[in-house]
């Protein structure tokens, strides 16, 4: 039995197994302004429900178009605020942060919980040992109204990350390497559970980057068992384990895959798909028009810190716009306190509020025809960040920062002493 099966079994007080359709009680259900308008339609108009059984476990986030870049978004946000008020649901308004970041850092989702999010990158939250999976809008409406929904319990693949992590290699490079190896449909119908001695050197920030992009190999969920790193993080934040579940390897996985991280280099995913992965050396020198450091993938304090460390006392290239968006207000405030924001602004970066905008081509830095971006985000589909003929390369914050200085894709290792 994988860790996810054990979390669901524990929650339901009866054993479930992979492949089974289980009716699961959700501890947390959340949605964002891209998916919430349809949730509101389903609850109010299609179902005509006046109250939610799970109101106290439901959360809405204004993070995708935050603050509103056009009137359609402003109207959607207005509906969300009215809905939240009427049904007693907590809403995190523009500027508070990106959903997956906030549910972790605010202690809304805690280890052992079952969390569903109307956003495909919900597996991010599995980094703290919760079962978190992405759902649709009707799903989220059902979960809010009834407090439960149907889930197919996924088979689990165990990935063992081992070895010391080389200089210039981060969580992002590790997950880009894996997406390149396993391809975009490699984990379809499955969840991924991480083990291995490399984990002790991966912080919660780094782990969230890895679980975040398991979505890009079609994993339904990703989870890292509670270990000393998680326990220390919980202690520092004053949070506790919600449901204690044995994290020991019981050996029942559909596959066990070793990944040796000590041989990795900084990686880049070239368009048009996330599994089109190369080492930074293979794409070095490619001119870029825009650099974006942020998103649910890489907008955490550790990411801003390494970008600031690389950019410190330098100027970003005249050729590029470098946009940095901390993933939450808390990260922004911490980055301010630590002086990182000052360093970035001094170098010529634009430090934006928390938003998903650039990643989804919604606002805050779109690309024109033929333009090229290097971004710390999770998707590089054609036209993702703007014009259909614009291109996106995905990389770590270190690689993005080095590229901002040079105006072309650059190896970060020469900037790291």
């Amino acid at each position, binding site marked *: 039995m994988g860790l996810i099966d054990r979390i669901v079994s524990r929650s339901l007080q009866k054993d479930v197994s992979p492949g089974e359709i289980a*009716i699961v009680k959700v501890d947390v259900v959340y949605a964002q*302004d891209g998916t919430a308008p349809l949730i509101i339609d389903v609850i109010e108009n299609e*179902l005509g429900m006046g109250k939610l059984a799970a109101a106290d476990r439901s959360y809405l986030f204004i993070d995708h178009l935050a603050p509103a870049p056009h009137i359609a978004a402003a109207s959607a946000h207005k509906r969300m605020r009215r809905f939240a008020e009427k049904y007693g649901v907590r809403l995190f308004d523009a500027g508070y942060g990106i959903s997956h970041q906030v549910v972790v850092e605010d202690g809304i989702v805690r280890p052992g919980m079952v969390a569903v999010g109307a956003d495909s990158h919900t597996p991010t939250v599995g980094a703290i040992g919760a079962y978190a999976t992405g759902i649709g809008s009707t799903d989220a409406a059902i979960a809010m109204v009834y407090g439960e929904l149907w889930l197919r319990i996924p088979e689990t693949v165990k990935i063992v990350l081992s070895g010391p992590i080389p200089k210039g290699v981060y969580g992002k490079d590790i997950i880009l390497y894996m997406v390149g190896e396993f391809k975009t*449909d490699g984990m379809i119908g499955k969840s991924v559970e991480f083990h291995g001695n490399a984990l002790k050197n991966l912080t919660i920030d780094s782990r969230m980057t890895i679980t975040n992009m398991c979505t890009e190999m079609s994993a339904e969920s990703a989870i890292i068992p509670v270990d000393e790193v998680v326990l220390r993080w919980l202690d520092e934040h004053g949070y506790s384990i919600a449901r204690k579940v044995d994290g020991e390897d019981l050996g029942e996985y559909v596959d066990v895959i070793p990944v040796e991280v000590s041989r990795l280099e900084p990686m880049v995913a070239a368009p048009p798909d996330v599994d089109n992965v190369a080492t930074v050396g293979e794409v070095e020198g490619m001119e870029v028009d825009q650099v974006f450091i942020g998103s649910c993938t890489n907008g955490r304090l550790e990411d801003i810190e390494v970008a600031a460390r690389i950019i410190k006392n330098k100027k970003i290239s005249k050729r590029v716009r470098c946009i940095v968006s901390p993933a939450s207000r808390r990260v922004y405030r911490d980055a301010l306190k630590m002086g990182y924001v000052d360093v970035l602004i001094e170098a010529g970066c634009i430090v934006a509020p928390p938003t998903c905008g650039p990643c989804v081509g919604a606002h805050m830095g779109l690309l024109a025809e033929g333009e090229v971006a290097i971004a710390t985000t999770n998707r590089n*589909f054609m036209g993702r960040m703007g014009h259909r003929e614009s291109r996106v390369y995905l990389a770590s914050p270190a690689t993005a920062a080095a590229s901002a200085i040079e105006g072309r894709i650059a190896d970060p290792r020469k900037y790291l002493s």
Partner: protein
Amino acid sequence: MIRQGRCWKLGDNISTDHIISGKYKFEAINDINKMLTHLFEEVIPGFHKLVRPGDIVVAGRNFGKGSSREQAPRLLKMAGIGAVVAKSFAHIFYRNSINIGLPVVISRKVPDVTQNGDVIEINLVEGYVKNITRGVMEPIQPYPKYIGQIVEIGGIVEYIRRYGRPPWQEATR
């Protein structure tokens, strides 16, 4: 449930962005009807004018990958698509399709032999998918109990409207 229709053949890894671009989703966020003319526009130019009620989409691996974007299956259903047959589906797209009552069928063989315009039949009662044009038939796995009930009635909202509760509550109480 039996669906028969003319096929639109697509390849592997058709994403929710291919089905409906995020740009339109965000611009028309309060009104799904405004997105309909952009359905599949980068993949099949003019699709919204060419599609006929009852048409069936046949695709390769990982259909519907990408975002949670429930507008993707909703728009397919609104355009009259009767079912989607693919070698595999991204899990949120699959869930969304079930929840809105768009039959989604996993088929290993049929996508390989199918070409645009072939006539496809799916039979969820007897459990097969058939390319009538090519004379190729393949058995399909029946849906688990609740899933079958949701698809049969046309979606979970329809089910709740009819019975006042989701199917699993009926089963346990």
